[in-house]
C-alpha cells in the first residue's frame, strides 16, 4: 500500500507537468473540435456536435492529404531503412577503424528540415537552380523537379536523403552489438558472408528494423516543414500532407473547428498505429 502511495507521490510532478503542457491544449482542441469557431469567435465557441468531423471526412482534400501522408510515410520509411541498413553493414568495418566518419555521415540529420526544404528549392528551381542548369548544359534535358508529375518523387528523395542517416545510425549500433563470435561460428560452419547476413545478422537486427521503420513512418506521415518550405501545398494540392492540410485549414481558411477535428483524427490514427506497432515488435522479440 505504501508502495503505491510512494509511486503516486513520485509520479505526481510529472503527471502535473504533462497535464499542464499537453492537457490544456488537448482540452482546447477537443472543445474547438466540437464547436463552430472562427478567429472572430475564439472566446465564445458554439457547440456544434460532430459537424466538424463530418465536414472533414466529407472533404476530398482531407482524404487526398491522408493518402499522401500514408504513401509518403510508407515509401520514405522503407527507402530510408533499406538504404540505412545497406550503408550500416557496408560501412561497419570502416567505422570500426575510423569512428569519426559517423559524424560526417549524420550531418544531414543536423540540418533543420525547413532549411533543407529551402535549400532544395534553390538547388532545384527550374530557372535559377544549379541542378537543372547543369543538366541542361550537359544533357540538354532536365526533369521539372517541382512539376506535378515529379514533385512527389522529389520530396520523397529529399526526405530520404535527410533521414537515411538516422536509420543508418540505429542499424550501425545494432550491427556492432552482434557478438563477433556468432559471425565467426557461422563462418566456420561453412556460411558465406552473404548467407551469413540473411541467416544471422539480419534476424538479430530485426527488432531494430521494426523500430526504425515505425519511427521513420510516423515522422514521414506527419511531415510538414521541409515540404512546406520546398513546394508549399504543391501544385493542385499534390504535396498536401496531413500536417499541411491542418495548417492550411486553420490559418489560411480560418476553419478552426475543422482543423482541430482533423488534428484529433490524425492523433487517434497515430496512436492506433503506435499500439499496433508495439504489439508487433513485442511479438517479433519473442
Amino acid at each position: 500500500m505504501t508502495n503505491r502511495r510512494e509511486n503516486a507521490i513520485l509520479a505526481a510532478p510529472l503527471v502535473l507537468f504533462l497535464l499542464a503542457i499537453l492537457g490544456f491544449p488537448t482540452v482546447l482542441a477537443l472543445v474547438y473540435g466540437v464547436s463552430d469557431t472562427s478567429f472572430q469567435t475564439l472566446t465564445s465557441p458554439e457547440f456544434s456536435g460532430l459537424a466538424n468531423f463530418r465536414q472533414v471526412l466529407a472533404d476530398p482534400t482531407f482524404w487526398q492529404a491522408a493518402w499522401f501522408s500514408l504513401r509518403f510515410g510508407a515509401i520514405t520509411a522503407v527507402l530510408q531503412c533499406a538504404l540505412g541498413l545497406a550503408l550500416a553493414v557496408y560501412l561497419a568495418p570502416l567505422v570500426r577503424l575510423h569512428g569519426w566518419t559517423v559524424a560526417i555521415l549524420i550531418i544531414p540529420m543536423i540540418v533543420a528540415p525547413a532549411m533543407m526544404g529551402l535549400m532544395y528549392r534553390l538547388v532545384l528551381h527550374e530557372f535559377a537552380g544549379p541542378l537543372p542548369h547543369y543538366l541542361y548544359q550537359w544533357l540538354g534535358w532536365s526533369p521539372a523537379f517541382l512539376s506535378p508529375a515529379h514533385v512527389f518523387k522529389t520530396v520523397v528523395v529529399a526526405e530520404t536523403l535527410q533521414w537515411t542517416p538516422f536509420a543508418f545510425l540505429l542499424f550501425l549500433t545494432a550491427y556492432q552489438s552482434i557478438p563477433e563470435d556468432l559471425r565467426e561460428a557461422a563462418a566456420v560452419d561453412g556460411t558465406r558472408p552473404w548467407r551469413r547476413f540473411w541467416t544471422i545478422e539480419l534476424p538479430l537486427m530485426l527488432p531494430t528494423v521494426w523500430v526504425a521503420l515505425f519511427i521513420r513512418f510516423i515522422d514521414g506521415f506527419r511531415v510538414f516543414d521541409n515540404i512546406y518550405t520546398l513546394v508549399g501545398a504543391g501544385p493542385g494540392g499534390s504535396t498536401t500532407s496531413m500536417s499541411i492540410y491542418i495548417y492550411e485549414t486553420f490559418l489560411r481558411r480560418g476553419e478552426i473547428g475543422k482543423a482541430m477535428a482533423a488534428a484529433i483524427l490524425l492523433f487517434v490514427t497515430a496512436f492506433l498505429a503506435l499500439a499496433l506497432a508495439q504489439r508487433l515488435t513485442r511479438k517479433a522479440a519473442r
Partner: protein
Amino acid sequence: MADLRLEHLSKRIGGHSVTHDVSLSVPDGAFCVFVGPSGCGKSTLLRLIAGLEEASAGRILVGGRDVTQVPAWDRDLAMVFQSYALYPHMTVRDNIAFALRSARRPEPEVAAKVAEAARILQLDSLLDRKPAQLSGGQRQRVAIGRAIVKQPKLFLFDEPLSNLDAELRVHMRLELARLHRQLGTTIVYVTHDQVEAMTLATQIVVLRDGRVEQVGSPLQLYDAPDNLFVAGFIGSPKMNLLAATRQGDRLVLPGCGGQSVPLPPLAALPAEGVPLHLGLRPQAISATGAQSLDLVIEVVEHLGSETLVHARAPGSAELVTALVTGGRTLSPGQPFTAGFGTAALYLFDPTGQRLR
C-alpha cells in the same frame, strides 16, 4: 577425418609476433591439446587453423590440402567456442542444423543427422528450446552438437570447459573423451588447464610466448620434460624446482640449508659452480628412499588417502612439496625426512634446458 600439419606458421599483429615459426604434425584421429599460460598464443594458433586469422607466414595443411589461403567457410572444419556462440534467435534444432543447411543438404538428411547428434548428446528433449532457456552445460552440449553434425575433417575446441563449474567440467571432460573415442575424428583442443590436457590428450603441445616448447604424449611430457617450463607446467601438484650447484659428484642445494644429493645419471657433467635447477616431483617423495633431505613441516593439507606436505630446511628459503600416501599423523612443526631415488631427479642448465 584428416591429419593436420603446420609448417613454419607465424602470425604477427602490428609488428608483435603472436605465434612464431610453429611446425607441428597432428596424426589422423589424434586428440591434440594446445596448452600453455594465457597469452602464449594457443588460441591464435587455433584461430589460424580455423581460418579466422590470416597467417603472416607458413602453411596449414588439413588432410594434405593446403588451406592457408582458403576462407574459413571452405575449410570444412567445426569449432566449439569458449562462449559457445549459439545463435540466439534459433532453436536448438536449428542451431544444430545450421551448418548442414548452409551446405544445402537435403532436409530429410538434415533431420536424421540432427536426431542422431541429439541422441549422442542427450539433447532430445531440448530441441525446440532457444539457447536462452538452457543451462551452461546444455549450451555446451548444443555447441558440440553443432560441430559434430557436420562430420568435419577436424574439430577445433577453444577452451570449451572454462565457463562451466568444477563438477560439470569433470563430467564434460569424460563426455569429450567418450565422444572422441566414438567419432574418431581428429581434435585440436585449446586449454590453459594442464589437468584437462593430461586427461584428454593423445598428444600435448606445450606453448609459451608463441613458440612450441615440447610436443609429446601426456606421459612423455610428464616423465621426460625437455625444459624447465614444461617440467613446471605439466603435473599437479607442480614439480619442486630447487637451486643447485655441482660440487664433485654431488649437488649442493643452497636453498635447503646446503644439504646435498648425489648427481643423477648424466651423459655430460655440468661445470662446477654453475647455478642449476634441480627438479623433483612431489609424488616421487616418500618417507623411505635411498636419498633424503631433512626438512621441517610448515603446512599440511590432508586430502584423505593422501597428504600434501609443504616443508623446508630450517632457516632456508625454498619450500619443498611432497605428496605422501597416508600421512594422517603429520602436523606442522614436525621434522620431515623427504626420501627419493636419484632416478627421480631432473637437472636443468641455467637456460632451462634439461641435462640428460
